[in-house]
């Protein structure tokens, strides 16, 4: 045996109608960071769930230190020293950091909790690995980054030596990502073995030692990261070449489509306004990106813009028409398309069929109803047309339940619906969140195509790469205010990061004019 700490050999896991893992082999060396790369639905999560005991494989075996083991549930995994940080944290919001870490393995003396002892151990671990935490704060009061550190400490506190990170950077700010990657390196240096699930190639190149690639349930290969390139990895992942830079011509901005003046929107969670005095224009034929770290008022801004929320003050005009007080339907009908941030909450009725979802914004138009009766034949034809043109894949075509579709195809359905609808302005809010590079490439090309067709595109994004690659103009939002306007061709990600973190601003605070 080599020094493999975990070997998953020839794992096959089937679900009704699909083979999620088809004869997959993954070998983890002690002390390495091993990336697991694949598109959405490639079987990464299934494979890790098999290792963590959430699923049992039909075929294949798992070995630890060369010995065959059976893992029937997460407790077995824990006993073998396997820990996992889930993409959505498993923390009790109203408990303290300390209470969350010891939850399940509380030290008890004659029926009473003995917190002090464990607190000592936790602080020791925290120092050893540079995981800064405040043990007595409540989870709901601390940042997402710290919550993640709590999850990591939970694994360390249980003396886990094999750490699984499931897309850990999806929820973090660029600065926090940097810190996390450093922490992972430190953990590996201390002898922990790390499995790192991701579809972000930059992060793999930065921290991973080796990388195993899965594609559609099949094992594609394992490569040394040092001797490969991003292009190579992405080709392995999607099976074709992917362009990272978005192909687009110089923008040719036309007339002003959207004009926002001194817009202020209240916050639902606190007393201050979430969006304060924001003014800017978007012209036909340009992609303007509103960049910022999550929670700086972007969501509220979009709610105010699309009519989901009332404005406190300010005005919005679309093609010269004031729509500040217009209803959602009126805004939509006068040319605003909206790809919402949360496709499950706003974008889709998950229990409706695909075809019903595709007419969600248009069912009331004469094309789709006659005397208030839905024209089912038109609906079906239209759905088939969109499915073909936008390559929306699903198991049962127009009659597939939206719930059973993959995230990428759900998003494609929304994009098809919003782009095909007559519009002048396309508001795309984090349109690529949680999607793999293939889908991201597709969505970016759709945005550019929309721009080239003379539409105004307003993109709201948290991803630095997306901001830099796709937009023609960048506006940075920080704490509800526009703090800078940047030209993506002249600025750097570092500079953009500083603006997003509020360390720099180039517009006057009071007037809020975005450099027009």
């Amino acid at each position, binding site marked *: 045996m080599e020094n493999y700490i975990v070997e998953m050999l020839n794992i096959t896991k089937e679900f*009704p109608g699909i083979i999620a893992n088809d004869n997959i082999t993954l070998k983890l060396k002690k002390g390495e960071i091993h990336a697991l790369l694949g598109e959405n639905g490639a079987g990464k999560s299934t494979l890790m769930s098999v290792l963590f005991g959430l699923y049992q494989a039909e075929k294949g075996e798992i070995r630890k230190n060369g010995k065959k083991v059976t893992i029937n549930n997460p407790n077995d995994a824990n006993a073998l020293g396997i820990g996992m940080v889930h993409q959505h944290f498993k923390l009790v919001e109203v408990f303290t950091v300390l209470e969350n870490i010891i939850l399940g393995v509380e030290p008890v003396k004659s029926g009473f909790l003995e917190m002090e002892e464990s607190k000592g151990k936790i602080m020791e671990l925290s120092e050893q690995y540079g995981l800064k935490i405040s043990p007595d704060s409540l989870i709901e009061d601390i940042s997402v980054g710290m919550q993640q550190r709590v999850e990591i400490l939970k694994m360390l506190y249980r003396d886990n030596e094999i750490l699984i990170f499931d897309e850990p950077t999806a929820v973090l700010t660029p600065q926090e990502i940097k810190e996390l990657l450093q922490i992972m390196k430190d953990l590996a240096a201390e002898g922990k073995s790390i499995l790192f699930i991701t579809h972000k190639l930059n992060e793999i190149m930065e921290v991973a030692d080796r990388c195993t690639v899965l594609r559609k349930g099949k094992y594609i290969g394992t490569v040394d990261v040092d001797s490969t390139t991003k292009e190579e990895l992405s080709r392995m992942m999607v099976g074709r070449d992917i362009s990272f830079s978005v192909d687009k011509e110089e923008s040719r901005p036309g007339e002003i489509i959207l004009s926002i003046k001194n817009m202020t929107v209240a916050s639902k969670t606190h007393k201050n306004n979430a969006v304060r005095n924001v003014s800017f224009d978007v012209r036909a034929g340009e992609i303007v990106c509103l960049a910022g770290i999550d929670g700086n008022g972007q969501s509220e801004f979009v709610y105010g813009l699309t009519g989901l929320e009332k404005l406190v003050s300010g005005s919005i005009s679309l093609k010269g028409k004031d729509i500040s007080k217009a209803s959602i339907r009126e805004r939509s009908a006068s040319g605003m398309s909206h790809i919402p941030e949360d496709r499950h909450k706003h974008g889709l*009725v998950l*229990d409706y069929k695909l075809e019903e979802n595709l007419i969600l*914004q248009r069912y009331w138009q004469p094309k789709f109803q006659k005397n208030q009766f839905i024209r089912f034949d038109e609906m079906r034809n239209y759905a088939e047309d969109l499915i073909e043109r936008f390559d929306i*894949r699903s*198991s049962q075509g127009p009659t597939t339940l939206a719930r059973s579709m993959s*995230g990428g195809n759900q998003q494609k359905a929304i994009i098809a619906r919003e782009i095909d609808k007559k519009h002048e302005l396309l508001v795309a809010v984090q349109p690529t969140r949680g999607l793999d590079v293939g889908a991201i490439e597709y969505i970016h090309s759709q945005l550019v195509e929309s721009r080239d067709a003379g539409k105004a595109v307003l993109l709201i994004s948290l991803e630095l790469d997306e901001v830099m690659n796709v937009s023609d103009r960048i506006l940075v939002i920080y704490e509800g205010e526009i703090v800078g306007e940047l030209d993506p061709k002249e600025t750097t990600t570092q500079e953009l990061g500083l603006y997003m973190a509020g360390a720099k601003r180039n517009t006057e605070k009071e007037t809020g004019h975005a450099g027009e």
Partner: protein
Amino acid sequence: MQGNNNSDKPKYNFKRITSHPGFKSLGAAFMAVFLGLVVGFAIMLIASPGNAISGFRFVLLGGLRRLGDVLYFATPILMTGLAVGFAFKMGLFNIGASGQYTMGMFFALYVAFMWDLPGSTHWMVAILAGFLGGMVWGFIPGIFKALLNVNEVITSIMFNYIGMYLVDMWIQNNSIMYNSSMTRTRYIDAGVQIPALGVAGSNVNFGIVMAVLIAIILYIVLEKTTFGYELKATGHNKHAAEYAGMQGKRNIILTMVIAGGMAGLGGAFAILAPSAIAGSSMTYEPINIIAANGFTGIAVALLGNAHPLGTILSATFISYIQRGGTLTSLVGFKPEIIDIVVAVIIYFSAFAMIMNSAIGRFIKARLGKEEDKPLLEIGEEPVEEAEPQNEQETEKEAE
């Protein structure tokens, strides 16, 4: 579940059928009913071991002797069932069917006693008045919900009592309607009663025909119109409905008004039903009791899976069991015991929703293993970002 190993063809077809959502909810309803009957029988055994079997035979088969009555008693609970089920499609729990029913009944009575209208228009107008009364009583919780976001369960429960006390008060204060020596309403003229269908010894009347037609109309509204599309979308995901520019507030009010109208019609159908005894009529006794038909409507809607056509079946079934139950007094069962047995059956029917998925899973577990290529049914995977376990994609890959 026998015979699924024998040959490939029928197994596949069986699977096809069982994966249809309509089958699942029907199967669940039957399962609920079956369990309810088993427990009901157990209760009868405990209450009176010697008579349990003959009594239970009455419960099961007694209704057959009184099919006319089964339909007659099914009419009002079909309407209250529709009242609950229709609102449920929008995600509203209309527990106020009872108050709406009572209000509809009063409006119908008022027209019957106080207005003078020629010929058969009288009963028709009285029915419309009942419709209106129920709509008013649905409108108020609807307004509270839509404009002030007050939970409709709370308001509609309160309006059950408000409606009932108001109606009792109005009736007792009206000597034209109220016969104080009998402590109930006077007999309604035969001309205001709904025409009977002519089944001997039964009060079954044209009301059941109208009720079934209304159920079919509701079905068409829900499944074929833009209003139904909006209503169900709101019920499934009100955020997406709002995002799509649907007028949620208007729809909430409209739904509650329609639901209330259904229950109100139930009240009108019940009180305007013809009497088999010449010279008499249905009467109402204002004794401060909330109408039970309103609550039975909840069970009817649950058992019918809130589907208008399913509700026709479930209302008929519950009425059937109740009719059979009353006959068990012939073998010495106390009416209370029968109420318990019927309540148990109805109670189990509330589990229909849960069994809905349980049955599907059971059948899938049984048949799924041997299937080569089963129909895709992915919704059960607990996936956040929906791992796309997508047949087409895999096939594409295989090329």
